[in-house]
């Protein structure tokens, strides 16, 4: 498991974990993020159960397990949350698990003893220390009906969950950032066309993100956009036809 420090200002850091060379090919590649402060840290989308051994070893190399006081789940998918029960067992007893109010009953299938702090639809602040806080921002219907991202106004980083996700072949990954945007669109177009189902949601999300000051847009799969590539991505997404699965309704033959 590789760890990339993508931003740092004192104890306030953004760490990206991913591109594990030992990861099974059958499991979708994911990137996990940790935001640290001078007190607590939050683990964003801790990943699936198969990833847990590599993740716990890599994360605790950087952040003491006693500081992992918050888990944030962008949505309910197993690649985001199936290791929930294991993380809850190793994190401190006062761990707070943040997730959309929509999903608590569903996530309890992964961990029936977990206690959740539910995020209302407009989102909420997650405070890590008196001086550091991040904010859960809505990404509903992109793709999950109860979906959030995390925005850090000081770092100007937006963790965007599945929005901006790409499936980059192992041999094409040379780092954690997008280096050639036009080439990169080939790795994300199919995903966005099929997985995003709502143009309205897409348009509202793009408009919301344009109102934020974002230097980096960090998805849960694939590479991170930075600098001008953030704007390029928003333009590209805004113009992309989504909901390609809808065609199937006309193809069933009855």
């Amino acid at each position: 498991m590789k760890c990339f420090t993508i931003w740092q200002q004192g104890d306030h850091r953004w760490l990206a974990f991913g591109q594990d060379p030992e990861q099974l090919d059958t499991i979708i590649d994911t990137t996990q993020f940790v935001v640290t402060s001078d007190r607590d840290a939050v683990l964003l989308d801790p990943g699936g159960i198969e990833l847990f051994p590599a993740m716990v070893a890599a994360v605790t190399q950087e952040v003491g397990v006693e500081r992992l006081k918050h888990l944030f789940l962008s949505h309910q998918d197993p690649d985001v949350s199936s290791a929930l029960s294991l993380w809850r067992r190793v994190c401190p007893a006062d761990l707070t698990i943040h997730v959309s109010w929509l999903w608590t009953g569903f996530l309890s299938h992964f961990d029936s003893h977990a206690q959740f702090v539910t995020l209302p639809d407009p989102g909420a602040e997650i405070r890590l220390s008196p001086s550091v806080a991040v904010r859960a921002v809505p990404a509903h219907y992109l793709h999950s009906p109860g979906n959030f991202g995390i925005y850090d106004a000081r770092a100007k980083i937006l963790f965007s969950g599945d929005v901006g996700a790409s499936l980059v072949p192992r041999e094409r990954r040379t780092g954690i950032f997008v280096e050639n945007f036009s080439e990169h669109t080939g790795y994300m177009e199919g995903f966005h066309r099929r997985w995003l189902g709502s143009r309205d949601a897409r348009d509202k999300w793009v408009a919301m993100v344009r109102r934020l000051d974002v230097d980096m847009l960090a998805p849960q799969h694939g590479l991170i956009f930075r600098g001008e590539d953030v704007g390029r991505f928003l333009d590209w997404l805004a113009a992309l036809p989504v909901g390609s699965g809808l065609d199937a309704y006309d193809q069933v033959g009855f």
Partner: protein
Amino acid sequence: MVIQSHSSEAGWHDRAARMKDQVATLYERCQAAYHTFDGLPQLIDQMRIMSVNAELVSARAGDHGRAVRVLTQFVTEAVTRMLAMIPEMVALKKCTYAQAGMVLRIANDVDKIEGGGARILATGRTPGDSALAALEAAWRNEMKGFGEAVAGMRRAHEGLVGMVRTAREVVLQVELISANIAIEASGAGPFEADIKAIADFMRGRVEELRAMVDNAGRSLRAVADMNHALAALAVGRI
């Protein structure tokens, strides 16, 4: 900064690998034990109908059927005894599958926790490391749950062994009754053929029941061995 992970070869706890195979085998053998009894409700129903039929024939036979009527009462009692076993068996089955599911989940979790611990050790951190301590606590907690689940399976197993014992008693009882009915048939005059047919039918059902009991007994002995092995794994957690 890039930190490469290491392979998970380093030794830490290594219970998961042993648990996995044994748990899978245990699950398989439990299923086999219960499947053996899949045909039991149908068999009991056949015996119930047969005992009603035997009562009718013995009534029709008058004095010739007096002894058969008495013997048939015992068959009816045996059928009632076996009918009472069915809801108990369903409850035991439910309990076994719930505990087996728990054991499988714990085995999977232990595998991941041990994998995490091994990777941490491989990075050169010492056993005093806070992450290792947290994993150690999680591991012990899982093993405690594992021990409890195995104990639950053992209790269900003991319940099933008790039921097999009851079924074996019924086999012996009905076998004896069918032999006596066959003897009574020879003195039943015009009803000899009808009563003999009842005795033959009864013997056939007894053989089916005996096969079920024997197969279940074999599966349960194998389950007992696995339970002991798994309990030893759980006890060895300290």
